[in-house]
């Protein structure tokens, strides 16, 4: 199902900023380990211009960040860099929110969604059974407001255009079944 090479088989075409060989580890800066004791200074300087912004650094309150008209656009972009999107699942009583930036690719995203919604029997993955159980498709709403199937475009392109996710079940999903 998933290509061994990359998270979604599209690793080579994945759009990234950064030097070859550097990972997108900076995105996970808000996860366990800091960088300082692992990378050398020079490397930090080189990659500093291309780092994803770390949450809450520098320590300035959002009230202040949002107060400068020119900067507000950047602040909003930064908030978007946190990449929280709503996830709705047809039939579920409430929505969830996930941070797309913590996932490295489509596979992780699927697993995350699987975990999150398993109480709604999302875990019965029809693709494994070859059609038994409910069919589903993960779709998203892009910047233009269109409903798109998740998985068509490179991961980086996806997370920059995804505004919200919707897990479609049943008849609506038929014909849109995910290929991955």
């Amino acid at each position, binding site marked *: 199902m998933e290509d061994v090479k990359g998270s979604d088989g599209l690793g080579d075409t994945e759009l990234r900023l950064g030097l070859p060989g550097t990972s997108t580890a900076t995105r996970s800066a808000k996860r366990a*380990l800091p960088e300082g004791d692992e990378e050398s200074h020079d490397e930090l300087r080189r990659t500093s211009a291309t780092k994803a912004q770390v*949450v809450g650094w520098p320590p300035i309150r959002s*009230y202040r960040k949002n107060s400068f008209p020119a900067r507000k656009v950047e602040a909003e972009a930064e908030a978007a860099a946190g990449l929280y999107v709503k996830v709705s699942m047809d039939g579920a009583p409430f929505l969830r929110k996930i941070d797309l930036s913590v996932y490295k690719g489509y596979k992780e995203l699927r697993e995350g969604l699987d975990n999150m919604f398993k109480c709604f029997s999302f875990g019965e993955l029809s693709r494994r059974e070859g059609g038994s159980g409910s069919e589903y498709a993960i779709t998203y709403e892009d910047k233009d407001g269109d409903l798109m199937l998740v998985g068509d475009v490179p991961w980086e392109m996806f997370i920059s255009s995804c505004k919200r996710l919707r897990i479609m079940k049943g008849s609506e999903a038929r014909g849109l079944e995910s290929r991955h």
Partner: protein
Amino acid sequence: MREERSDMSEDDDGGGEEKDSWAPGLGVAGKSRGAPDPLPPPLCDQVLENVIENVLQFLSSRRDRNAASLVCRSWYRAEAQTRRELFIGNCYAVSPRRAIDRFRCVRSLVLKGKPRFADFGLVPVGWGAHFSPWASAMAAGYPWLEKICLKRMSVTDDDLSLLALSFPFFKGLTLICCDGFSTAGLAVFAEKCRHLRLLDLIEDYFEEEEYEVVDWISKFPQTTTSLETLGFDCLLSAVNFEALEALIARSPALRQLRVNHHVTVDQLRRLMVLAPQLTHLGTGSFRSPEEGEGMEHEAHLVSAFAASRSLVSLSGFREVAPQFLPAIYPVCSNITFLNFSFAEITAEELKPVIRHCHNLQNFWVLDTVRDEGLQAVAATCKDLRELRVFPLDATEDSEGFVSDVGLTAISDGCRKLQSILYFCQRMTNKAVLTMSKNCQELVVFRLCIMGRHLPDHHTGEPMDEGFGAIVMNCKKLTRLAVSGLLTDKAFGYIGKYGKSIRTLSVAFAGNSDMGLRYVLEGCPKLQKLEIRDSPFGDAALLSGIHHYYNMRFLWMSSCKLSHRGCEDVARRLPHLVVEVIRDRPEADDEAVEKLYMYRSLVGRRNDAPPFVKIL
């Protein structure tokens, strides 16, 4: 007002109302605190108690009161009866019930909620610090309550309504960095609170849609009001200006007014004319929406300022049009607090203003004034006590307009400096060392080199020596925030010399567990410790076991902690609440992403959301 504000930000006191003498061995039971005496004291003791009460009512410092309450049971009771202001530094450290049971006659409540790193998005929404249980308990227990000050609490519109309806003598509400309420709540509050003297909204979060905004200013009583302070500079929506004008006109006691950025300079002038007795003014946008009418506006504005002979504090300037700045010259020599931290002005625009500000004690400014602007400040403001330099572009890759040059200039010119907050991208150990030698009065030193792990700009060395000099030379230092490239050596200095430090903020610093150990083992007065993205693990965490009951809280995020280590602490310190906060609910790693732990008299809270696990 500013005094109160700095009080809130600088933890100036050890211990809260009951926690001065936490000793792991004795535990709570050994301190004869908690449940009140079942039997009343004999008559002669009662007389003595009355005498003590009469004496103790003159004690205002809570530290003194805490000490007095430890003398004996009689003093404990007397002090509890006479404490008028109750300060609770962590709303989860004690329950409303316990507070009310002990202190029966409280008139004023100060309550703090979320950890400070919540301001920077590190605490997920819904974490807690709900004011509602306190509001209900106070409504029942303190009917004569007059003042409430909340910081980082979630306050609902219903809470505001309850406040207004439950306390007939209510005089003042201050909300700092709070969220959860809206103009609808403010409307009910304004309408029902007939004797309100103070309403101050400071950097609160509003999330209303435009169609939801309510005209709350119109809801104040139509008769002459008792308003002395009205501050709403953080409000996102515009207020009804005519109603505001009418309100000011019927508020003869008004001394402090802080309007938001929707108020134009012409509107401001009209308000100032109605209230020439103001001492504190938040000037709103300080620009005019119409171009080309400048000259006339400016002349009228100058006379409005000239007539405001009592002004000592100016803020606002949210979209300042530089041609209006000269209007404030008449008051510059009187002002002690000037907040230009939202004014995008250059050094050239600052200089003619600051030149007049001989008596300035507190100055907040944007780094757009550059080192040159700071040099001008240093040349004139010899009485400066507090300086805050904020970045216009608060990103770690930003250019940074101030540097070690500005810091050195300030330290040379402003020898009385007590508190500094400085955001920059270039700093040297030498400049920090110079400040440590020149500014012996420093109590608060917060240096934020925005680029992570940046070393000394000239030598390429870590910033260890600079911060080391600060802790070594500034004997009065109680609050420290470090940044830049720092090794364990810096923490060694802090542990060795930082004997008075109460609050420490650490980010992206240190090499190993030793760093944190130095601090936990070396700083006996440490109360508030917040750490992010630093390589400190379980062993370091455990090295502080002897001290955690003396602290208000410890925050560690993106460090090297594991569940095992945190569980170990939780097991050994039963009166410590150990919260593990998960960003992603699906993750169930052994690694602990965010740890927040604090002592508490009431054990684990019952309102923790699903992403918080209390060990």
